[in-house]
């Protein structure tokens, strides 16, 4: 977990941050020694079980007929613990953004459950749903479209208080908004400006401030830095890490950039065509991947170091991702996999610790949905 920055972050961090930090460092050390999921963190704050989202494909205008379904998310499960960052990576069309929408209850799940502190939020509506929403917030990908261009920054960050008036009394809101601006590193005097007067990085800070307004416990970040310039990305990532420590937030960090995900995540899930291919701690996934898709994905990441690059093995996948409307039978990755055998077309591999690693004290013993799971280091130079 990040050390609190010294060079460009404000000095207004609350005094108890150092305690949190120590705790975080401590728990990570434990996580590394005990290679299984962090058992010492108690009950997960969020549990996702067999989540499914199919978008019906229809024909006709007035009398619609369903002709199929896009299986955007097809049965995924994972846990999120307090104060933890779970990274979800995958290529476009793998369903990772749909997962974000489902967790936010912006889309109705076709099947499956999402338990927030033991309560299934997919079944909630009305007041109960509104209450849960206070605790799960979202940061969007595109800072240019996620802020209403006709509202001032003060109105945008203050809107959560209008919708949930119980959080802040009316007279207090302006001060609260200014505090939030300060927390995300923006000048509180900019409260009356409009979004188009800010740069991309600053707008993303405004989006983060809006997400923080209701003191949520979980923040879902859908590609929060992919629209930003490289030099600004690092600023925003550092800010998010600082806020996590300060407010003990849990993040679900969805991104396609594997390097950034590794940097910020404690655990990482790799998605392919609506399914979870592999999930484990960042070390397990990046240093000891066992699913061929994870291996290919990692090996394809361009590394800004030509020398390291030359000595790395690269797995170049053939073909494109198949359509989620008509995924391959059995293992969904088999059409692009170099290990594929008959079994892969017939049997859907389950996401579980592979048989051969079961009980073994090795980092390769983490959940991987492959019939022929096998460890392979693709990140380091040979």
């Amino acid at each position: 977990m990040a050390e609190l920055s010294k060079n460009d972050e404000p000095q207004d961090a609350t005094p108890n941050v150092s305690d949190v930090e120590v705790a975080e460092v401590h728990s990570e050390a434990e996580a590394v020694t005990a290679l299984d999921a962090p058992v010492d963190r108690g009950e997960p704050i969020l549990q996702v079980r067999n989540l499914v989202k199919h978008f019906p494909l229809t024909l006709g205008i007035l009398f619609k007929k369903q002709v199929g379904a896009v299986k955007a998310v097809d049965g995924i499960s994972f846990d999120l613990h307090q104060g933890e960052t779970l990274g979800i990576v995958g290529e476009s069309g793998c369903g990772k953004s749909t997962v974000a929408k489902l967790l936010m209850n912006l889309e109705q799940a076709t099947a499956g459950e999402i338990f927030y502190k033991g309560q299934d939020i997919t079944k909630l509506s009305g007041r109960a749903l509104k209450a849960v929403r206070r605790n799960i917030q979202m940061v969007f990908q595109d800072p240019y479209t996620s802020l209403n261009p006709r509202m001032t920054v003060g109105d945008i960050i203050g809107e959560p208080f209008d919708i949930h008036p119980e959080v802040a009394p009316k007279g207090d809101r302006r001060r609260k908004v200014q505090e939030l601006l300060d927390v995300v590193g923006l000048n509180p005097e900019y409260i009356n400006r409009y979004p188009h007067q800010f740069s991309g990085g600053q707008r993303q800070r405004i989006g983060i401030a809006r997400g923080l307004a209701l003191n949520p416990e979980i923040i879902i970040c859908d590609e929060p830095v992919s629209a930003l310039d490289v030099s600004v990305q690092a600023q925003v990532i550092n800010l998010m890490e600082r806020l996590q420590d300060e407010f003990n937030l849990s993040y679900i960090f969805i991104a396609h950039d594997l390097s950034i995900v590794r940097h910020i995540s404690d655990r990482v899930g790799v998605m392919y065509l609506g399914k979870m291919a592999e999930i484990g701690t960042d070390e397990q996934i990046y240093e000891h991947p066992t699913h061929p898709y994870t291996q290919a994905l990692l090996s394809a990441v361009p590394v800004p170091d030509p020398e390291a690059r030359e000595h790395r093995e690269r797995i170049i996948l053939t073909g494109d991702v198949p359509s989620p409307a008509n995924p391959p039978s059995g293992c969904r990755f088999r059409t692009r996999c170099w290990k594929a055998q008959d079994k892969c077309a017939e049997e859907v591999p389950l996401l579980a610790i592979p048989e051969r690693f079961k009980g073994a004290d090795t980092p390769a013993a983490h959940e991987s949905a492959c019939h022929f799971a096998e460890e392979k280091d693709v990140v380091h130079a040979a």
Partner: protein
Amino acid sequence: MPDVTKTAPETGAEEAAVAAAGGPLPQPKPEKARSLWGDAWADLRRSWIFIVSSVLILILLTITFFPGWFTGADPILGDLSKHYLQKPKLGDIGSPDWLGYDQQGRSVYARLIYGTRASVAVGFGTTIAVTIVGGLVGMIAGYFGGITDSVLSRLTDIFFGIPFLLGTMVVLNSFTDRSIWIVIGALSFFGWTQIARVMRGAVISTKQADYVVAAKALGASTPRIMFRHILPNTLAPVIVVATISLGIYIGAEATLSFLGLGLNGVSWGNDISDGGSSIRIAKWIMLYPSIMLSLTVLAFIMLGEAVRNALDPKMR
């Protein structure tokens, strides 16, 4: 030799301020809060089309509300001694004689001034009615989608399919006493479809914007999303269409009057119709109301154009 360990506070006052606030700030130059409407207004003020058209419209509105300021003559009082054979005295600006007299000895100038009220009232009245009805239908269809959208869109298509002028003529034909309200009602009944279509399209595209999704994620109510997030961002195209159609409704009112199906009373259309039969001997009876009508319609179309440019800089 530069000291590598040097940190922000030493790199100047500006940067010290940046560091204190914990990160990047906008340009040091003081910058006022500029809303998008404010930007559009700044653009408009610079456009000569806007200035010309708004001066014209301002004059028209003044005439509408204070016709007495412009002429002392009575537009209905016919003085047959002043019959149309008395030619206009073009040098005599503002007098009842200025633009001549019609067949019944009424001052063409006075009728021009008092006729403005009918045209402007019908134009504004219809535009307001059409914007409310069309805007509402478009908003509901676009926002709720599904069956609601299918039904409302087909309804819009049906009305869109009826020829606008023919429809209003059929309706107005069934009234003998046609007040301003009846004319506005008939025009609006067939005219709301364009705004509804524009609104529906704008709502559908705005509905998918991330900031609307963000508001939903916060748990915002449907009215809040509709009126605080979607409406302000869909107004621009609606305002443009409404402004342009205002001119068109004024033209439509004149057309109806010309055909004898418009307002009973003083109206440019009636005068153009009356003057048509005497165009060879007294062209002014028809000429001046026609010029006035064209100028008015042009003014609103120009205004709409200027507003479009200001609200949507990409069009340029």
